[in-house]
């Protein structure tokens, strides 16, 4: 299940043209990883150690920061280059 979600996210990240959809794919992959963390935390011998849960919570926080920065960058690039199409963004010089 998590592997399928990760694969869908990866496919989304690699195949879409729009930059925002690539970010959505990355979010899906992060969520798949979180699901794995929680599931292993639940079914491993010592769930009261809280390790997996903590890891998942920190991962959620980091993913939120990543999403904010990523979308800010997309908006900035869009303002600059007037497109969100990744195939068109082939220059690094403004």
């Amino acid at each position: 299940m998590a592997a399928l979600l990760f694969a869908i996210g990866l496919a989304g990240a690699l195949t879409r043209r729009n930059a925002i959809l690539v970010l959505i794919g990355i979010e899906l992959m992060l969520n798949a990883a979180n699901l794995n963390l929680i599931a292993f935390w639940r079914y491993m011998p010592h769930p009261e150690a809280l390790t997996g849960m903590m890891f998942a919570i920190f991962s959620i926080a980091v993913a939120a920061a990543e999403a904010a920065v990523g979308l800010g960058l997309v908006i900035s690039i869009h303002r600059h280059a007037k497109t969100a199409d990744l195939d068109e963004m082939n220059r690094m010089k403004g």
Partner: protein
Amino acid sequence: MSFVFWFLAAIAVAGALAAVLLKNLVHCALALTVVFTGLALLFLQLDAQFAGFAQILVYVGAVAILVVFAILLTRSSETPKDGGVFSRTWMAGLVIAAAVFAVLGWAVLQSEAGLPHETAVPNVTVQQIGNALMGRYVLPLEIVALLLTAAMVGAVIVAMHEMGDAK
């Protein structure tokens, strides 16, 4: 595995497929919200209450709104002129994703032994989580706080720089 698990898993996977495959970006964002909600419910079903509610607050509440904002702000260039919504290298991307999925599935099937290790329901209260955060995990907590601050400042600076250029 219970019926509830398969139901939620089906919802999440269908939402993920829709989020990746739909043409309209706003529909993609809605499907993404469905995926996040389904995952939050899965966390709740796995007795991780705090993570489930954090997932709802952070993802359904914040990230989905951010995605919708970004989509609406970059709307003018939404419709591609030629060749659909997929990039030119979509075939390579699909092959890579399928390969990764095959490897992951193979690994999961190989390591079947000993996994559903049915333990007693862990009764994790928010108080325990708070104690752990302030005790054993205080350094990661501080690092996350620093990271969030840096990310916020960075996002604002990235957005403001272009505005200064325009004036």
